[in-house]
């Protein structure tokens, strides 16, 4: 009895930091029509098509005959087109003789267009037509005996191609979206309500990947499949890579060999000789006035390469390696080549694979940003599109890892089953453990060489989202081994025991903007909190006279009482609703970062060994894309009020501290001491122009406190930041660094004895408390 077919498949699964996507699968036809139904389960696996002998002979005989004529007659040339045409003529004039072969060709076409069913170890399994075409007709240089250079069947590829097809055809979007952020809102059960729009919502897929996955070949294969069966006078498919030479290499070394092997029934008439400089398919034999589609490559990595064209399938390869151009700008140009009406009607599709281990700083950071703009769960409420019009796709490196794939194409991820052992798998462990054990081993060696190898290994075999963007820019100095270990510990904890959870902070009385702040658990909330002060320690504040330097006058303002915390906010650029609305492209919005650090409590931590402290560490993190700056500033006030924390703001954008002053919360602002003069600074907070100091603060913190840090979002930013030049893209990193600097540069840590001292306000503006 055959096993039940799978009703769905899942992608982006098992990658920490990204939400999985589950997609339905088609219902199977009658089982007796599925390939392999007569076989025993152990003999049921993917088998390639075998061309009937009569067709092989037909092609060969025609070719031999015409080449013979070519040799014998001076004025005759056996061109490729003539050979193909003569093959068809021979077939068509002997229909009866080739009746079964013609039926077979029809089957090939059907599977290419609509997909293929086969029994795989007892289970009816569906693969998409692109996947079937790739497995049967797209040589990739596979050296395994018997493969004829064609790819092997991999379950990971099955999911990948199915997701490609979904992205190529879907008109679905989420019904309930956050009006500000565009994030899909789930119901109480965690389910999303879906609606169908009357148009396509996705223009392609962006996929960071490890090496040797065959992704470039897969993209090229889809280009050929679609382009060679599309009738159009003005459409084309283009290959673009990080350099023009690489695009040309893909065409010459991958497309041409595959095309040369293509059987006549999948090879439309073309222009040019046997190795044309571009594949220009023509329908002129049938309609003399009609031009055709073409598959070509870009002569440059610049955005202008395909500008003005209409693309069926675009391949943007290795964007993470691109130095020659801004890839986000390039994609914004290319977006209009696969769609019309400012992206309102999508007719094409675009694929963006890039090898993680090869990313450089510039291209890598832009690629990371493009990936973040491709969040499946963040949509435009009108168009249903993500910010980039693409969907992000990831597979952990262990899925499809060579040496861990059984004859059915499935990856042995965990401990192998008895059946897998009986089928010849002779290792006692799976692919995931293989990768993790290599990492662990390198970590344990703890030498500079092994730790360098550790980082390289994580890049080559990425598992977590952070690994996929571990862009190599030399050594940042941040100890990612500590981070990985701590992230692993946090990850291993059950969901209800995670050290930090998401909350909203709200005013208890919404009509009173200065009322107490309460925390409300909400998985979609803006604040990640790991420590909640006792109820009588929350909202502790006094209203008193403070000096407002801008108005040169004393003013009543709120101040925290005996602050045990220090916060930092890293604000962004826009401050009005109008300005935000003008920036329709959310991708250009910056994130607002924020963090609160619990300062050392000397009543608890008496030793000077920082790594042993219990009280010191981050208690709240905030990293959100908010349209209106003042709303962000209000969130920062609530955070400070709730924890009774000082605010040490990043002041490149002055709006945050100005807002605190305007709202009457000037007493919360913390001031550093100028190291040159020894005086309190004129303005609160710090400038990120002192990048080295900020970077060093984070680095030192990870060294000493990373092993117990509870905020994985902060740890991930520390791991991902490729260099000091990228601080503007890592808002939480800046905010947390600001907290650490604020802790060191403002007042001394609070002691039990000092708590009872009288608070004295001093300084030229709103100086920190002196005790």
């Amino acid at each position, binding site marked *: 009895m055959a096993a039940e077919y799978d009703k*769905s498949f899942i992608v982006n699964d098992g990658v920490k930091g990204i939400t999985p996507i589950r997609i339905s699968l*088609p219902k199977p036809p009658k089982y007796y029509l599925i390939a392999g139904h007569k076989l025993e389960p152990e003999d049921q696996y993917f088998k390639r098509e075998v061309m009937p002998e009569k067709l092989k002979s037909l092609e060969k005989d025609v070719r031999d005959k015409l080449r013979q004529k070519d040799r014998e007659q001076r004025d005759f040339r056996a061109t490729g087109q003539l050979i193909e045409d003569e093959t068809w003529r021979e077939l068509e004039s002997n*229909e009866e003789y080739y009746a079964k072969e013609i039926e077979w060709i029809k089957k090939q076409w059907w599977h290419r267009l609509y997909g293929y069913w086969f029994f795989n170890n007892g289970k009816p399994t569906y693969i998409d037509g692109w996947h079937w075409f790739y497995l049967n007709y797209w040589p990739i240089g596979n050296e395994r005996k018997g493969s004829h250079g064609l790819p092997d069947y991999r379950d990971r590829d099955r999911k990948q191609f199915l997701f490609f097809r979904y992205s190529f055809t879907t008109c679905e979007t989420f019904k309930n979206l956050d009006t500000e952020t565009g994030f899909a809102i789930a119901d109480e059960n965690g389910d999303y309500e879906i609606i169908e729009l009357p148009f396509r919502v996705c223009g392609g897929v962006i996929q960071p990947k490890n090496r040797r996955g065959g992704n470039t070949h897969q993209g090229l294969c889809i280009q050929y499949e679609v382009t060679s069966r599309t009738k159009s006078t003005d459409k084309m498919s283009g290959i673009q890579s990080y350099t023009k030479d690489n695009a040309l290499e893909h065409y010459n070394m991958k497309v041409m060999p595959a095309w040369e092997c293509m059987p006549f029934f999948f*090879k*439309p008439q073309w222009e040019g000789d046997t190795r044309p400089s571009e594949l220009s398919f023509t329908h002129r034999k049938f309609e003399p006035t009609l031009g055709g589609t073409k598959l070509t490559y870009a002569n440059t990595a610049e955005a202008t390469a395909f500008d003005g064209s209409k693309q069926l399938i675009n391949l943007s390869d290795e964007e993470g390696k691109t130095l020659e151009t801004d890839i986000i700008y390039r994609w914004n140009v290319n977006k209009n080549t696969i769609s019309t009406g400012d992206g309102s009607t999508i007719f094409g599709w675009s694929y963006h694979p890039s090898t993680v281990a090869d990313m450089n700083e510039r291209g890598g950071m832009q690629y990371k940003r493009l990936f973040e703009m491709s969040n499946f769960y963040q949509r435009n409420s009108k168009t249903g599109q993500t910010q980039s019009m693409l969907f992000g796709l990831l597979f952990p490196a262990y899925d499809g890892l060579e040496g861990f794939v059984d004859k059915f194409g499935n990856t042995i991820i965990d401990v192998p089953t008895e059946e897998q052992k009986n089928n010849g798998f002779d290792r006692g462990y799976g692919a995931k453990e293989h990768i993790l054990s290599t990492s662990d081993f390198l970590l344990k060696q703890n030498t500079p060489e092994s730790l360098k190898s550790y980082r390289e290994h994580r890049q080559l075999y990425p598992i977590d989202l952070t690994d996929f963007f571990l862009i190599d820019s030399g050594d940042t100095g941040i100890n990612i081994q500590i981070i990985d270990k701590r992230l692993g510990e946090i990850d291993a904890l059950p969901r209800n025991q995670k050290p930090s959870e998401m909350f909203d902070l709200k005013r208890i009385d919404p009509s009173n903007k200065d009322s107490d702040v309460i925390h409300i658990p909400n998985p979609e909330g803006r604040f990640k909190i790991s420590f909640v002060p006792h109820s009588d320690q929350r909202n502790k504040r006094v209203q008193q006279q403070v000096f407002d330097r801008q108005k040169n006058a004393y003013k009543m303002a709120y101040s925290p009482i005996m602050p045990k915390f220090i916060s930092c906010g890293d604000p962004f650029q826009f401050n009005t609703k109008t300005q935000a609305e003008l920036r329709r492209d959310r991708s250009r919005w910056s994130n607002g970062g924020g963090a609160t650090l619990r300062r050392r409590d000397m009543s608890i931590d008496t030793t000077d060994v920082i790594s042993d402290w219990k009280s010191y560490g981050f208690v709240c993190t905030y990293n959100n894309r908010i349209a209106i700056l003042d709303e962000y500033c209000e969130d920062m006030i609530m955070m400070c009020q709730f924890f009774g924390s000082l605010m040490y703001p990043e002041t490149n954008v002055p709006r945050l501290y100005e807002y605190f002053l305007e709202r009457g919360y000037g007493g919360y602002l913390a001031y550093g001491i100028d190291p040159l003069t020894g005086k309190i600074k004129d303005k609160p907070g710090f400038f990120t122009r002192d990048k080295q100091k900020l970077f060093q603060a984070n680095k030192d913190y990870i060294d000493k406190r990373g092993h117990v840090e509870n905020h994985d979002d902060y740890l991930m930013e520390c791991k991902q930041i490729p260099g000091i030049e990228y601080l503007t893209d890592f808002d939480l990193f800046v905010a947390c660094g600001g907290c650490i600097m604020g802790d060191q540069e403002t007042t001394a840590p609070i002691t039990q004895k000092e708590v009872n001292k009288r608070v004295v306000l001093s300084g030229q503006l709103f100086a920190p408390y002196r005790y």
Partner: protein
Amino acid sequence: MTKNEINVSSLLYNPFDKESLKKLKEYDEFKTIPDDKIISYIILAYDLKSDVRKEYPSRNQQKVEAAKFAGFKFTSNQFDKTVEEILIGEDYDVNMAIVKYLSFFGKPELMTLEFLYNKQFLLLYNQNKGLDDEKDSHKTMMLLKDNINTLTEVIFGGSETITARTALYDYIQKNSTISVRPENIADKLSNDEPPLGDSNPYGEGYMPDKMKYLGGK
């Protein structure tokens, strides 16, 4: 599938074995069949365990292929007129033989159909001979015709008795060689026409369902 690949052992009679066909001819319904190829065709197209029925999902395709395997000449995408009549169910004698063959499988509706065919035959015979003793013979005749049509649809699948010729040649036309050239496929796709006619390895009308998002778990 080739002729040699057909598993004849699972069939009630071997369509390619003269001795086996001879046994069938012992039945009255088969005595009037003038050509062994027709009997082979009946076995290949109507035996419930025929590989032709399994291999070719479309009913019309089954008939065409069964006729070809039986040895009927098929030139320029056409059968002879007499074969064509057999395939579309216009040959009374062959229909009777088919019903008889189907009766071997013990399906009540097949037996009923056989009875109705016989009854119809008897009525016609008596009318022609002036021996009609039924009061409402016309009404009975119409009722019989309706029942036969209904049962034929159930047994043979689809309304082929009405549109058989059109369907058969539609099938042949749609599936002629010319349609599998890449240029023709492209042409049909651009016109939103089914590029492969009725040809479908998974049975007439089967198409994979469109994929849908199900959730994040």
